[in-house]
């Protein structure tokens, strides 16, 4: 299983990476949406993208839309992981094509339970 963590915070990327690696994922990193699109292309196939909302160059919502515009990537599960916590924002992300939504701060257990919901961890 392969995942990518997309966040402009190196610390958050490290936390997500550590948790995912602990579950057996191989993990790529990207600091914004534009870099993420390139990395996904290079490292394809990828099973999961964990995506922050507020990032320079291309934000998380734009990235989700870009991902969902490509039918060849439809098998990739996308989860937003963000400090944005209004219901309207959550709905916007889901409408854009995110499969799940995790609010920061989150703990390891919350991340793992979201992966169970996504069918990536049993």
């Amino acid at each position, binding site marked *: 299983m392969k995942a990518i963590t997309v966040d402009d915070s190196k610390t958050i990327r490290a936390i997500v990476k550590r948790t995912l690696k602990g579950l057996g994922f191989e993990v790529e990193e990207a600091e914004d949406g534009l870099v993420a699109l390139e990395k996904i292309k290079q490292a394809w196939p990828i099973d999961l993208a964990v995506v922050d909302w507020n990032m320079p160059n291309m934000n998380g919502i734009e990235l989700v839309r870009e991902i969902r515009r490509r039918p060849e990537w439809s098998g990739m599960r996308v989860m937003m992981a963000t400090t944005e*916590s*209004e*219901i309207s924002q*959550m*709905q916007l*992300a*889901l409408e854009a094509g*995110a499969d*799940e*939504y*995790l*609010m920061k*701060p*989150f*703990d390891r*257990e*919350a991340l793992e*339970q*979201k992966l*169970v*919901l996504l069918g990536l961890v049993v």
Partner: protein
Amino acid sequence: MNDADFKFFTTFLKERSGIALEASKQYLIDTRMAPILKEKKIADLAALVVALKGGDKVLCEMVVEAMTTNETSFFRDVSPFDAFRNEILPRVIERKERERKIQIWSAASSSGQEPYSLAILMREHFPQLAGWGVNILATDLSKEMVQKTTNGEYSQLEVNRGLPAPLLAKYFHRKGVRWQVNDDVRKLLTCRTLNLLENWVGIPTADVVFIRNVLIYFEPDVKKAILGKIRKVLRPGGYLFLGGAESTLNLDSHYKRLDIARSGCFQLEEA
């Protein structure tokens, strides 16, 4: 904690809650009593034991509540909820077609995530139940937990755990920094305290009972007694959900395990 204090504490806990605390779980006393020591300005565990021996009623309740409250999450373990949605509830609906009433009992509901998960699942996937009388009785030993369930308010950390985002967006609203279950879901629940070891008064006849990860804490004779009492409130042919590591085997022959993957679901024999 010295041996004499530990012995007193475990005996006290067993008498009040039925829970048999093993010596290997002594760390639970340290971690769970720490907030109480701080709040009540009690110096250490030895002093706590002295206070408990003195019979301080409020303190006794606080200690039992702290020792018996468990971490939980929405849709915990997934499989029982899948079984409830795909197999059990459709059977119950078919059976209750004429009566149009369904009673569920979440018998150790802690902070309410289990009964609310059931209520949300019923709203989301069974619109045909809109005109039915659906009630989920949520009981717990702890007054504090029952109050929390009644309020239906959760922290961000709690709603992050196990609850699919589309359901969070649909069935909750923001209340300051917290999240509250919407009224149309909350009204499906009836919440009250109940000590499983005491007499059960006013428990309605249920179609399905959830009592997951509770029996594991009890001695076999207590498990038998509880399973026997559940038989009296579960309608014949009704369903019982236990935790994944729990069973009625060698405890009560009136229940039969259903072959539904990892659901922990049992059916009570027909009358």
